[in-house]
């Protein structure tokens, strides 16, 4: 903290600091002073979960509370030390983040590699008016540099600024553009695209296998309690906790996807907002969308509903199922909505006019039931593949985002003269044209390679 600039916690001074725009001289900033407390609270919750009901039962409440208290103080002290040593600042077209007490880490994130920026507000952060800023960069095994926590205003301004820097070309970056850095987000100019009705979301999550099993689970607990009087509160509580992990997934989805809104911001980026307890708002530049997947689950067929996900590079390495990833494009909706949305996200692609051809008849030896639903097609903008008997899926890969093409032929496929073509993207999932006729597979691969090149040159 050598710079004579404003003190780190002075959030409101943001518009003032724009005029003296010397990139290197920007002071290092700290995260919000409340962040260690919030981090500590999170860790304590994890610790309590790890200690579990069994421990509470065996050691008694007072001792349990004591252990938790000691650990709580420990984590808060640890978090404060972490907070003191963490800082960030923007230098030129890089975001630099320092952290670590013993192993100092100084990380520079080139902003032209930025894929998406997300603003997350867990429940505690919402109560305190804070937010976490997460940057997605390619090549990171997990989300790089979550800046937790900043005030909402700071976070939004920083996000706008980072995206501004990321979108600019090298030549433009050299020109002094003072106002750009100072311009805060202008939410009023956003063009809303879509809002998912919460009632639809609720119904859609009731139409999942887990929701059908939930009554069974509850019935199991009740009968156990009634039949065996020996069941204590602890016993019931631990059973419920154990079952909650699996059976409450629909509930989690409802909480996460609550109040789902999509918009286009003035710079033509996609803004996705959702969540009830933890709100997330994610900004994705359209050219960072690696692929779009459309899914028609079995139980939603009566309603003619579908859901859509989009793949962004950088989320690929982050496993952990769908709770951690923010890859929703449409949690639930009708075909018409989806069609309009795809037109927005992948300009020129009409979901209703994507023709696919099925594999040859002899592929039925490998896919006795699902043959009718397999297919692949080359449309002018995207590579389309379909699959799935019960849960039908369709994946759209824009040619410009193709990373590599693979043709793979297993022993059984060789007997039948078939091969599978994969179109790899940086988003993790590949478009997969299963069991094509061999000569057609070669032609597909060649076409994909050629079209990928042409799409890039425009």
């Amino acid at each position, binding site marked *: 903290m050598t710079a004579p600039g404003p003190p780190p916690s002075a959030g409101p001074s943001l518009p003032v600091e724009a005029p003296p725009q010397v990139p290197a001289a920007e002071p290092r900033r700290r995260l919000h002073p409340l962040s260690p407390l919030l981090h500590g609270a999170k860790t304590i919750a994890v610790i309590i979960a790890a200690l579990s009901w069994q421990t509470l039962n065996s050691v008694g409440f007072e001792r349990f509370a004591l252990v938790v208290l000691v650990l709580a103080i420990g984590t808060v002290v640890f978090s404060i030390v972490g907070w003191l040593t963490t800082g960030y600042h923007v230098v030129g077209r890089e975001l630099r983040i320092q952290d670590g007490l013993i192993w100092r880490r100084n990380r520079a994130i080139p902003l032209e*590699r930025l894929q998406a920026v997300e603003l997350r507000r867990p429940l505690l952060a919402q109560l305190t008016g804070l937010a976490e800023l997460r940057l997605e960069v390619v090549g990171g095994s997990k989300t790089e540099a979550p800046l937790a926590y900043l005030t909402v205003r700071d976070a939004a301004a920083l996000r706008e600024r980072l995206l501004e820097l990321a979108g600019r070309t090298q030549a433009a970056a050299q020109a002094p553009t003072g106002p750009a850095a100072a311009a805060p987000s202008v939410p009023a100019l956003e063009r809303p695209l879509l809002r998912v009705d919460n009632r639809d979301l609720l119904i859609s999550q009731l139409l999942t296998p887990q929701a059908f099993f939930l009554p069974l689970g509850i019935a199991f607990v009740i009968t156990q309690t009634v039949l065996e009087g020996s069941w204590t509160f602890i016993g019931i509580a631990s059973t419920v906790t154990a079952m909650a992990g699996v059976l409450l997934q629909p509930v989690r989805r409802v909480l996460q996807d609550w109040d789902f809104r999509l918009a286009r911001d003035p710079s033509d980026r996609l803004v996705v907002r959702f969540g009830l307890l933890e709100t997330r708002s994610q900004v994705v530049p359209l050219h960072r969308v690696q692929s779009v997947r459309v899914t028609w689950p079995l139980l939603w067929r009566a309603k003619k509903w579908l859901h859509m996900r989009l793949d962004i590079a950088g989320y690929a390495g982050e496993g952990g199922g769908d709770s951690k990833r923010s890859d929703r494009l449409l949690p639930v909706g009708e075909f018409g909505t989806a069609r309009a949305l795809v037109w927005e996200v992948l300009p020129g692609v009409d979901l209703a006019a994507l023709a696919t051809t099925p594999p040859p008849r002899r592929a039925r030896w490998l896919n006795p039931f699902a043959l009718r639903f397999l297919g692949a097609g080359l449309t002018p903008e995207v590579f389309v593949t379909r699959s799935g008997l019960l849960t039908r899926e369709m994946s759209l890969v824009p040619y410009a985002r193709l*990373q590599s093409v693979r043709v793979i032929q297993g022993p059984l496929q060789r007997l039948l003269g078939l091969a599978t073509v994969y179109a*790899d993207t940086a988003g993790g999932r590949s478009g997969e044209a299963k069991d094509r006729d061999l000569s057609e597979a070669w032609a597909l691969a060649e076409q994909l390679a050629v079209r990928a090149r042409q799409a890039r040159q425009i």
Partner: protein
Amino acid sequence: MTDPVPAADALEPWPDTVEWRPVSSKLITVELISRGTWFLVLLAGVLVGWSLQGSRWWLAGVAVLVVYAVWRAIITVRAVRAWGYAERDLDLLVRHGLLIRRLSIVPYARMQYVDVTAGPLERAFGLATVQLHTAAAGSDARVPGLPPAEASRLRDRLTALGEDRAEGL
């Protein structure tokens, strides 16, 4: 599918316009040595077992091991011959695999970085492996068994072509 579909043969996977380069046949020796070492270790284990117990089952085990080793040796020789790569103007093609045949097409423009590696055994025979990485996890463009000169030529060519072309994503 407007383009004429070229007549393809299962054994010659790409139209003849592509010039496939084989990998060095010294790779066969390297692969055989590394497999042979494992074979010898296992064989020694079985023979020790036989000398201690004298049961006939151990001899049967030796027979199975020998048959398996011979079969693997044949497979190895054929697998190395099946490796091939081709540098086209704008992309690199790599094909390999016998049981499961794989062909990868990686445009130079999508390259993120290139690895050149050589293990101790490979080095003893003057070989190196070049691997091309893209942002997609699924891409596999790995060419083993290249003479060092060829490996560095390929690496330089790949990086030079990669630099010309965009950011890769």
